[in-house]
C-alpha cells in the first residue's frame, strides 16, 4: 500500500505561479468589495500582480542556476523530479508571458471598462490564463503539459466570448471553444498512445520510447502527430488555423491581442518542449509534418491576408503567417546540429513578435476608439491627424514585415539562419519559401501603411485622437522594445546563451 507524503517543494522556483495564484484570489476578493465605479482597481491590481510575479522570475534568473526542479522527490515518493522544472528557457518564457499579460492589461483597461463588461471576472480569467502559460513553460510531463494547456485555454474561451451581447463575440467564443476542445481531445488521444508506448508520462521517458523503431512505429507516428496537433491548433498553424480569423475578429480586441501573442507563444512553448525533449529522435515524423505545416502556414496565411478588408482579421492572418515563420526553425531542428540556433530563433522570434504585435493591436485599439470601425479603410489619412500613432503603427508593421532596423528583421534573420543552418534540402527549401513569403507579407502590411500615409481621411473627421494613459504606456513599451531590439538585438543575449533544454540531452 502507498502512504502519501508530500514531495519536497522548491518554493522559490514556484514563486511566480504562487504569486499569480494569490493574485487571482486577491482580484476576486477586491472585486467583491469595491463599488462598481471603482472596478478599474481590479485592472490595476492585475497589472501589479503580473509585475509582482515577474520579480521571482528575475531573482531566479539572477541566481543563475542552470536548472531547478520545483517538485523534488521526497523520502517516500519517487519520480516527481524533472516533471516541473525551472530552467533558463522556462524563465525567459515566463517573463515573456507575464510582460505580455501586463501589456494586455494595459490594453484592456479602457475598453473593458468602457464596454461595461465585468471587469473583475475578466482580469481573474486573464490572470488564470497567464498562470496556465507560466505553468506550461515549466512542464516536462504530459500531465502537467495538458493541465497547463487547459488552464490557459479555458479562460481564453470565455474571454473570447466576453462581449455577451455581441453576436460576433459569441460566435468567436463558441468556435474557439469547440475546436479547441476538439483539438485537445485529439491531442489527449495521442498522449494516451504515447503513454502506452513509454509507460510513463515523463517526456524524457517518452523520448526513449519514441525512436521510430520496433514494431510499433505506426502507433508512435500516430501519437506524435496527434500530440503535435494539439499545439498546432494553439499556434494556429495551417490547416489547424481555421478558428483563428473568426475568433480574432469577433473577440474583444485586447483579447485578440492576447490570443495572438501569449496564447500562441504558449503553443510554441509546448511544441518546443515536445520537439526538444520528447521527440528528438523522431525527426522523420515531426520534421516533414512541421515542414509542411510551416510552408502552408506562411503561404496560406499570407495569401488570404492579402484579401482582407478588416484590419483585425488581416492581423489574424498575418499572425498565422508569422506562426509559420516561427515554425520554420522548429521544423528543421536537430538537423545538422542546428538545434541551438533553432531554439534561439524561436525564442527571439516570440519575444520580438510579442512586442510588435501587441503594439500593433494597441494602435488599432487607440484608433478604433475614435473611428469605431475595424475596416482598413478607417485608417485612411491617419497621418494627418495622428502622426504619432501613424509612425508607431508604421514601426510595428514594418517590424512585422521584417524591415531593418526594426525588431522583426532580427527575428526573421534568426529564423532564416536556423533554417539555413540545417544545410540540407529541408532547410534551404523552407528558407526560400520563407523569403518569398516575407515579400508577400510586406504587401499587406504596406497596404495599411499606404492607407495611413497616403489616403484621404474617409469621413473627413480630423479631430485628434486622445490616447488614454494606459494605452500610451503599452505603446511606449512595445515601441521602445521593437526599436531597441532591432538596433541592438544583442540585448537578448541571455536568450542567445540557451542552446538546449534541460533533459533534452539523451544519454
Amino acid at each position, binding site marked *: 500500500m502507498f502512504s502519501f507524503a508530500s514531495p519536497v517543494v522548491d518554493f522559490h522556483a514556484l514563486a511566480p505561479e504562487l504569486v499569480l495564484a494569490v493574485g487571482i484570489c486577491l482580484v476576486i476578493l477586491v472585486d467583491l468589495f469595491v463599488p462598481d465605479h471603482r472596478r478599474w482597481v481590479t485592472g490595476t491590481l492585475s497589472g501589479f500582480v503580473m509585475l509582482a510575479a515577474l520579480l521571482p522570475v528575475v531573482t531566479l534568473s539572477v541566481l543563475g542556476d542552470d536548472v531547478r526542479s520545483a517538485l523534488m522527490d521526497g523520502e517516500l515518493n519517487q519520480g516527481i523530479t524533472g516533471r516541473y522544472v525551472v530552467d533558463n528557457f522556462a524563465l525567459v518564457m515566463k517573463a515573456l508571458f507575464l510582460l505580455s499579460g501586463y501589456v494586455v492589461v494595459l490594453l484592456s483597461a479602457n475598453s473593458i471598462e468602457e464596454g461595461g463588461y465585468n471587469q473583475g471576472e475578466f482580469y481573474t480569467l486573464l490572470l488564470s490564463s497567464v498562470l496556465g502559460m507560466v505553468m506550461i513553460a515549466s512542464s516536462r510531463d504530459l500531465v502537467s503539459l495538458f493541465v497547463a494547456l487547459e488552464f490557459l485555454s479555458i479562460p481564453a474561451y470565455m474571454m473570447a466570448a466576453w462581449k455577451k451581447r455581441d453576436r460576433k463575440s459569441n460566435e468567436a467564443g463558441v468556435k474557439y471553444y469547440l475546436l479547441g476542445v*476538439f483539438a485537445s481531445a485529439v491531442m489527449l488521444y495521442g498522449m494516451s498512445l504515447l503513454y502506452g508506448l513509454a509507460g510513463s508520462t515523463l517526456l524524457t521517458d517518452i523520448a526513449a520510447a519514441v525512436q521510430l523503431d520496433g514494431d510499433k512505429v*505506426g502507433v508512435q*507516428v500516430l501519437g506524435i*502527430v496527434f500530440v503535435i496537433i494539439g499545439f498546432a491548433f494553439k499556434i494556429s498553424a495551417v490547416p*489547424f488555423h481555421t*478558428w483563428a480569423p473568426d475568433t480574432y475578429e469577433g473577440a474583444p480586441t485586447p483579447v485578440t491581442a492576447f490570443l495572438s501573442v501569449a496564447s500562441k507563444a504558449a503553443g510554441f512553448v509546448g511544441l518546443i518542449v515536445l520537439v526538444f525533449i520528447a521527440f528528438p529522435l523522431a525527426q522523420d515524423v515531426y520534421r516533414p509534418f512541421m515542414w509542411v505545416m510551416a510552408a502552408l502556414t506562411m503561404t496560406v496565411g499570407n*495569401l488570404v491576408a492579402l*484579401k482582407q478588408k478588416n484590419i483585425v482579421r488581416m492581423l489574424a492572418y498575418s499572425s498565422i503567417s508569422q506562426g509559420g515563420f516561427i515554425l520554420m526553425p522548429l521544423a528543421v531542428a536537430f538537423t545538422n546540429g542546428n538545434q541551438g540556433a533553432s531554439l534561439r530563433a524561436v525564442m527571439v522570434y516570440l519575444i520580438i513578435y510579442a512586442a510588435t504585435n501587441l503594439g500593433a493591436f494597441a494602435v488599432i485599439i487607440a484608433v478604433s476608439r475614435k473611428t469605431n470601425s475595424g475596416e482598413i479603410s478607417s485608417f485612411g489619412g491617419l497621418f494627418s491627424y495622428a502622426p504619432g500613432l501613424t509612425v508607431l503603427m508604421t514601426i510595428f508593421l514594418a517590424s512585422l514585415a521584417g524591415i531593418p532596423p526594426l525588431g522583426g528583421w532580427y527575428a526573421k534573420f534568426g529564423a532564416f539562419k536556423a533554417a539555413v543552418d540545417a544545410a540540407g534540402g529541408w532547410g534551404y527549401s523552407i528558407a526560400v519559401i520563407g523569403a518569398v513569403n516575407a515579400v508577400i507579407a510586406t*504587401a499587406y502590411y504596406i497596404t495599411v501603411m499606404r492607407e495611413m500615409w497616403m489616403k484621404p481621411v474617409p469621413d473627413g473627421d480630423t479631430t485628434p485622437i486622445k490616447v488614454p494613459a494606459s494605452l500610451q504606456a503599452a505603446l511606449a513599451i512595445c515601441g521602445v522594445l521593437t526599436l531597441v531590439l532591432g538596433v541592438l538585438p544583442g540585448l537578448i543575449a541571455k536568450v542567445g546563451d540557451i542552446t538546449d533544454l534541460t533533459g533534452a540531452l539523451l544519454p
Partner: protein
Amino acid sequence: MFAESTEAAGWFLENAWLIPLIPAVAFFLILGFGKRMPRGGSEIGIASMLASLVIAAGTAYQWVQRVDAPVAEGEHALARGSFGFARTFSEEAAEAGHEVAPVISTLDWFDIGRLHVSIGSHIDGLAVTLLLLVAFISTLVQIYSTEYVRGDRRYTHFFASITLFSAGMLTMVLAPNMLQFILGWEIMGLCSFLLIGHWWEETANSKAALKAFFTVRVGDMGLLVGTAALFALFGTMEIGEINEQAANFAGDNKGMLLFAAIALFIACIGKSGQFPLHTWLPDAMAGPTPVSSLLHSSTMVVAGVFLVARLYPVFHVGLDINVAGQSFNLIAVIGGITVLIAAGLAFVQDDIKKVLAYSTVSQLGYMMLGLGVGAWTGAVFHIFTHAFFKCALFLCAGSIAHTGSHHSFDMKKDMGGLRKKMPVTFVVWIVSTMALMGVPFFSGFFSKDEIIDSAKHNHYTVFYFVAIIGAAMTAAYMTRATYLTFFGKARGGAAHFVHGHDDAHDTHDAHADAHGHDAHGHDDHHAPAHHSAPLPFAKTDSSWQITVPLIILGVLAIFSGYLNAPALGIHWFEHMTESSIGAGSAMSVPPPPEFSWAAAAPGLLLVLAGFVVSLLISKAVFGEKKTALQGLTQRNSLLGAGHKFLVNKYYLDALYENVIVKAVAYPIARAAYWTNQHVLDGIVNAVGIGGKRTGELVYKYVDQGLVDGAVNGSGATARGAGGALQPVQSGKVNLYGALLFGAAAVGALVLVLVNS
C-alpha cells in the same frame, strides 16, 4: 605643368598644347563675359584663334627646322618633353634613317588598372599641317562671321561654340593617344550639333542638327569598339606606339587588326560623310554659312580622313593596302563610291550650299580613295589644299547670300549675273573653282593629281578611272553652279540686288519669307540695315570682314599647292610629313610616282571635257533660255521675226534639256538622288523612326506587357490564390473540425507509410 625636355626640341614644338588650350579657355571666357564685351565676345574668339595661329605657325616653323636640321646622334629620340614616363619606341627608328621623331609632350592624366591615360601633344608633320590649317581657317572664318552673323540673337553663343569647336579639332589633331583623340572628336560633334542647330527655333534646323550628331554617333560606335580592339591588341592608347606596333605587326592575330581597322573606318565613314552615311552632311547646311565653311568643308569632316592618316599603319597593315596583287580594299571602295555618288548628286542641287556640300563629300571621297591606294601624302595634301578652296567657296556662297541674294541659297531662283556687282566674290569663286576642278597650277591640281597618279601607279586601276571620271564630273557640276550663280540674268533676290537696293527693300519681306532657308535674322536684320564698309575697289560687294578672308583664301587656293608640286619637282610637303606614318617600319608605303604630264593628261582632258560640256549645257539651259523667255514675254509682236528663231532656240533647249539632260543625265542623277533621298536617307531616317518604333513596341508589349505584366501578374496571382483560399474559411465549425482532423489523419497516414 609640363616639364622641360632635357634637350630642347624647340619651345613651340613642346608647348603646342597651348594651341587648343587657348581657344578652350576662350570658350569659357566668351560664355562668361562675352555678353558684356563691346563686340559680344567675338573679339575673344578671334584673339584666341590668332594666338593659336601664331603658336601653330611657330610650331610649323620649328618643325621645318627640325626636319631640315642635320641628324645629331640620338637627338631626336631624346627630344621629347615627356613628363612622368618616357618610352623609347622610336629611338631605333630615329637612328636608323632620315626619319624625324615626333615631339611628344605628355602629362599623366590618370591610370585605371593597365589603362594609362595622358594628355599632351604629339607633334609631327601631319599634326603640324592640320594645326596650322585649322587655326588659320578658324581665324578667317571668325573674322568673316563678325559680319555674317552680326546682330544675331545668339551672337555670343555662336562665337563660343565655334571657338570650342576649333579647340576640339585642335585637341584631336595633336592627340598623342586615342583618348584625347576621342575627346576632341566628340567635342567637335557636340559643337556641330550646337552650330548646325544654331537657329533652333525652326524645327528643320534642329532636326538637321540632331541628324548630324546622330549619324556621326552611329559611326562613333566604330571608334569606341575599334579603340577597344586596338587597346586589347597592343595594350596601349598611345598613337605613336600603336602605329609602331601595327607597322611591325607580325602577330597571328591579324583578324583582330583587320577588325579594328574596319571598326575605326566606320567611324570615319560617319564623320567624313562617306557613303553610305553621307546624308547628314547636306542637311547640315542648315547651319549658318561660316559653320558650313568651317565644319563641313575644311575641318570637322576631314577628321575621319585624319584618323585614317593618323593611324595609317593600322589601316595599311590591317587592310593589306599596297600588298602585291590587291586591287580593291574597303577604304578605296568606299572612297571611290563616295566620289562618284556625291559628284552625281551635286548636279541636281538648286541650293548652292548643297552643291558645295556634295562636292565636299566627293572630295572627301578622293582623300579616302588616296589613303586606300597608298597615296598618303597626296591625301593629306589634299586635305590641306581642299581646306582653302572649299572654305573659300563656302564663304563666297555666304557672301552672295548675305549681300547678293537676300539670304537665299537657291541658285535658280535668286541668283545669276552677280559677277559684276560682286567682283571680289566672283574672282575668289572662280579661282577656288578652278582649284577644285584641278586645273593645272591651281592648288587642287597638285594634290588631286597625286592621288590619281598613285591609284594608277599602285595598280588600283579601277579607282584610277573612278578618280578621273570624278574629276570630270567635278568640273562639270562646278561649271553649272558657277554659271547659275554669276552668269546669265539675275533672278529673284539677285535681281533686286543687281538692279538696285531700293527695289530689294520694297519686296524684302516677301523674299525673306519665300526664301527663308538661311533663316537667320528674321527679326534681326532690320536693325543693321547697312553693313560695314566694303573694300574700296569693290563697293557693291560684301563688306571687308567678308571679302578680306575671301581674298586671302583665294590666294591660297592658288598657291598652297606649291608646297608640294611634283609637276614642278617640289616635294617639300612630303618631306615635312613623311615621318608621320610609322617611319622606319616594316610597312611599305610605295613612294609617290614621278610626275609626268603624260600621265596627268587623260585626267586633265576629261576635266576639260567636263567643263566644256557643262558650260555649253548650262549656257543653253539656264542662260539663253531665260533671255529668250524674257524676250518673248516682254517684247511686242513686232519682233515676231525673231520669234521663230527664239522658239527654235527654245526647241534646242528643250532638246538639250528634255532629250539629253532629262533622258540621259537626269534619270541617272535623279535616280541617284532618289536613291539617296529615299533609300539611303530613308534608311537613316527609317533607322531613326524604326528605332523609335521598336522602342515603342518593346516598351508597350515587352516592358509594360511582359516584364511588368509578369510582376503585376504574380501580384494578381497571389491575390487570386488568396481569394481561392478564402472559401476554406467557410465559417462553419463542422467543416473546420473536419479539416482539422482530416489533415491530421492524412498527415499521420502518410508518415506512417513512409516510416514503416
